């Protein structure tokens, strides 16, 4: 009985997803050539835009036919919807296991590339935007769920660091797939990096970002789909395992130290800590 009620409550959401997904799938992949490469627009990007435009929180008048309470039920379904996709990725790693093992050293070390979040973003946050301690939360990782947990645990989410991590989390949720699809298709079509390296870099620890990234690669380099998904999937799995530790034991202490060095007089700095004391 209860199960039936839930189904009845959820059917408008499922129906919207079905219709928008079918439309997006019919549109297919669209290529936009720009000077430095080609941007690939994928069905998963189209469908995200469609459902955003049907979301009563975004477009207020929709609320008359579809309540905000009803769409809130879509949230737990994302995790479930990503499972068959993750399963499919697993099944591309198995047959290519030799290739993945061969790429082992590269796969393992490129996890440290996740520290690259700091490289570009931290200087801009500090010196261009004059941001405060929210820059620590913002740049220490790609701000997915495990990283929020780390920041929440250490600083609380109402702290400046919490504001920073939540900001990047929300921007990632809204625009992350687009950013990854665009960078991946540009880099794949201009030939700076090899496809294998780009595929490994796709595993950033977020299912949808990996999907956009490896999807763009697979479309840009047809014929390599199997090795792209195998390497991206293996790297993503590694990030599930190591990402939290890289962020907790390397990235966060590193950004914290850099910040204390650059802004020793910020009144928001934790008082007990000095630059000399190891940041746990």
């Amino acid at each position, binding site marked *: 009985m209860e*199960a039936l009620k839930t189904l009845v409550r959820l059917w408008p959401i*499922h129906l*919207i*997803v079905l219709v*928008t*997904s079918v439309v997006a*799938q019919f549109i297919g992949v669209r290529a936009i050539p720009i000077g430095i490469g080609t941007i690939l627009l994928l*069905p*998963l990007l189209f469908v995200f835009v469609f*459902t*955003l435009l049907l*979301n009563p*929180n*975004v477009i207020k008048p929709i609320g008359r036919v579809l309540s905000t309470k009803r769409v*809130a039920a*879509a949230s737990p379904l*994302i*995790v*479930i*919807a990503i499972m*068959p996709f993750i*399963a*499919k990725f*697993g*099944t591309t790693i198995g047959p290519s*296991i030799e290739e993945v093992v061969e790429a082992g*050293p590269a796969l393992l070390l*490129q996890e*440290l*590339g*996740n*520290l*690259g*979040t700091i490289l*570009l973003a931290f200087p*801009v946050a500090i010196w261009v*935007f004059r941001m405060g301690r929210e820059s620590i939360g*913002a740049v220490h990782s*790609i701000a997915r769920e495990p990283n*929020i947990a780390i920041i929440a645990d250490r600083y609380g*989410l109402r702290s400046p660091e919490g*504001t920073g991590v939540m*900001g990047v*989390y929300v921007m*990632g*949720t*809204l625009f992350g797939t687009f*950013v*990854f699809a665009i*960078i991946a298709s540009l*880099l794949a079509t201009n030939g700076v*990096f090899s496809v294998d*390296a780009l595929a490994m*870099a796709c595993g950033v620890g977020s*299912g*949808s970002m990996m999907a956009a990234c490896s*999807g763009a690669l697979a479309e840009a380099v047809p014929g390599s789909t199997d090795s792209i*998904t195998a390497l991206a999937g293996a790297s993503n*799995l590694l990030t*599930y395992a190591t990402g939290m530790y890289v962020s907790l034991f390397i990235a966060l202490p590193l950004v914290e130290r850099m910040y204390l060095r650059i802004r020793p007089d910020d009144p928001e700095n934790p008082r007990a800590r000095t630059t000399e004391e190891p940041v746990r």
Partner: protein
Amino acid sequence: MTTNESAEDLVPTSNDRSFLMGPMLRDLAVLTLISIPLQLIATDLSLGAVVAGLAALYALCVAGLVITKYAPFYLPSVAWISLVGIVLTLPFMPWFEWFNGLVVGIDFLALAVPPLAYAGLAISDLELNVMRRSGWKILVIATLVFTGTYVGSAAIAEFMLWLTS
């Protein structure tokens, strides 16, 4: 599901294993059904082949969820599901030909469409407020964060591939 009221509500609680198996498997079945037309559009497979492939992936997910719930240590369900998928498709497994044959034709990009559809619907007032409050500067920072990790990882991978080849 209550409406989100504070930043704390945004912190996902999906990474515990207290989920109820029944509703989970039911929702997973509904989502698998939604994928059928998408696969028919995306691939040249017959209806029977699509259903068989999606059923195989469904079975992988169920196995991963069962392990998530009862394993002696915690790993996120997506990690277990990946691992089950890897182990079942290792080339030396006796069922390799059969099982790989079921799933190999399924289009991975089309499988990523429904999650993004739900994600678009799930964007809440709270998230939009965070976006407005953070402003365009955080958007620029987020873009740099993503570009940095991608290029950083690709550069290291490229160097290591060059070193080991």
